């Protein structure tokens, strides 16, 4: 069963804008994005540089200066995230809202074993004993389909494969049992079967515990089959949004272009079409 967006959303974002100063003025990374997330799976797709990650990071106030974030409203379960104290934000981060970052190897400490990193992340938020944290960590590694959790617990980040690194990050973010998970390309390095099993874990948390999920991905087919709703971003704006099942009937020429550029198992083409961009797509208010 899929959960439909409930009446009071978990998260409300209105007119989010993020810009970074550059030598020639400003890079407008996000330009007036509004959306809500209920106890559902919201997908965000769009080309590289369209502002997906910056959107995700600004929700947790993780955009560092000189980046500037403004919005009319960012509200999470009754808390105003724009004006909350830094102390309040630390409470929310990791405990109520978790984020799986796009680059697992960047986010992991290279000189600490992966098991210890997860266990300590758990202990920060709970008063669990060391052995309890270790047990929970091993369970979680098993849940994300890591074979031989005992061995992997003691490996350093450079000793795990690309896909293992991603699952380690996911385990670390799920262990505090968040209400909202922001997952930025969380499964791009996983093989398709493991990917599906890891998605099933998130799906289960959404349907059984009512966790909300923001799922950022390049993989249009995956998002269409996994999420409930989809936002399509281009040049810092949401150019189209739809129910996930209707992505393949999307109307915007940009969305169509993205869909067309995918190689397909059931279609043998000599050359893949690439996007030809129309300046009108980037215009504010334009469609």
């Amino acid at each position, binding site marked *: 069963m899929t959960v439909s967006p409930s009446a009071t959303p978990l998260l409300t974002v209105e007119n989010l804008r993020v810009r970074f100063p550059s030598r020639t003025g400003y890079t407008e990374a996000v330009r007036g994005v509004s959306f809500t997330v209920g106890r559902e799976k919201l997908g965000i797709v769009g080309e590289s540089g369209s502002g997906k990650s910056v959107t995700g990071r600004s929700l947790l106030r993780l955009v560092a200066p000189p980046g500037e974030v403004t919005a009319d409203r960012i509200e999470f379960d009754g808390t105003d995230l724009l004006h909350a104290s830094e102390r309040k934000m630390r409470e929310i981060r990791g405990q109520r809202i978790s984020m799986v970052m796009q680059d697992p190897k960047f986010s992991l400490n290279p000189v600490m074993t992966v098991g210890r990193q997860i266990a300590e992340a758990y202990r920060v938020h709970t008063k669990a004993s060391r052995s309890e944290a270790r047990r929970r960590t091993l369970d979680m590694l098993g849940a994300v389909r890591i074979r031989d959790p005992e061995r992997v617990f003691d490996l350093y980040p450079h000793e795990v494969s690309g896909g293992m690194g991603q699952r380690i990050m996911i385990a670390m973010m799920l262990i505090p049992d968040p209400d909202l998970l922001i997952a930025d390309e969380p499964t791009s390095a996983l093989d398709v079967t493991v990917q599906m099993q890891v998605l099933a874990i998130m799906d289960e948390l959404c349907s059984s515990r009512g966790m909300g999920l923001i799922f950022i991905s390049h993989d249009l087919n995956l998002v269409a089959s*996994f999420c409930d709703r989809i936002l399509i971003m281009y040049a810092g704006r949401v150019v189209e949004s739809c129910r996930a099942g209707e992505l393949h009937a999307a109307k915007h020429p940009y969305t169509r272009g993205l869909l067309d550029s995918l190689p397909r198992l059931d279609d043998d083409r000599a050359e893949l079409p690439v996007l030809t961009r129309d300046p009108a797509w980037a215009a504010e208010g334009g469609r």
Partner: protein
Amino acid sequence: MTQAMIGIEDLDVTFGYGAATVHAVQNVTFQVKPGESFGLVGESGSGKSTVLRAMSGLNPDWSGNVSLDGQTLGRQRDKAFYKRCQMVFQDPYGSLHPRHTVDRILAEPVAIHGLGDADKRIDRTLREVGLGPQFRFRFPHQLSGGQRQRVAIARALILEPRVLLLDEPTSALDVSVQAEILNLLKRLRAEHGLTYILVSHNLAVVAYMCDRLAVMNRGRVVEELDVESLRRGQAQQDYTRQLLLASQGYDRAVADSFKDFA
């Protein structure tokens, strides 16, 4: 039968010692013909990158028989090997030196191999991967993901190798840039008669790029098949069928039905 461009026979790779030994690759055998493009797919951690790394001499702890163009390779790779065989790495962020310009990144292999004419070569290779001269003096952080991957491909191409080992060359890229890079790799292969091994999780990418493929699970090749069979879903092994099913998109019931293959 034509002689194989790449021959891998009974390849075994282990990491660690004693009780902590991991048998990452076991008994892997396959051959790739000259001008052929061969896909390597399979479970995460099944040893795909390790096979490519052993082939490129980045991992000395292997046994078995590895040959390039009929010549058996020893433990050490010499310059002549890298002139003929180059690898493009899985991680587009980590594989370019962050404080070197594109120009320096490309000039280095040319100097090491004493090829001369660096200036013209760099210019031509950048053009070949679709990067204009304006990119030549940029640093990696001034490039987009797709542009960075083009530089990584240019660095591999600049020595005019016969063989490219491509480890997930597009998994970090968006679908439109992926299309550009795949078209580019396909064109380069056709124009220069290159031989590829391509590692990818995306079966549609493998179908688009390759003639044949091997499916790996837990360090072993479980099945070899041609792309036509892949497209038609005609796999012999249950593990491969599971992969095919998973690549049709997310389905909770299907996910729950998945088995572990030992």
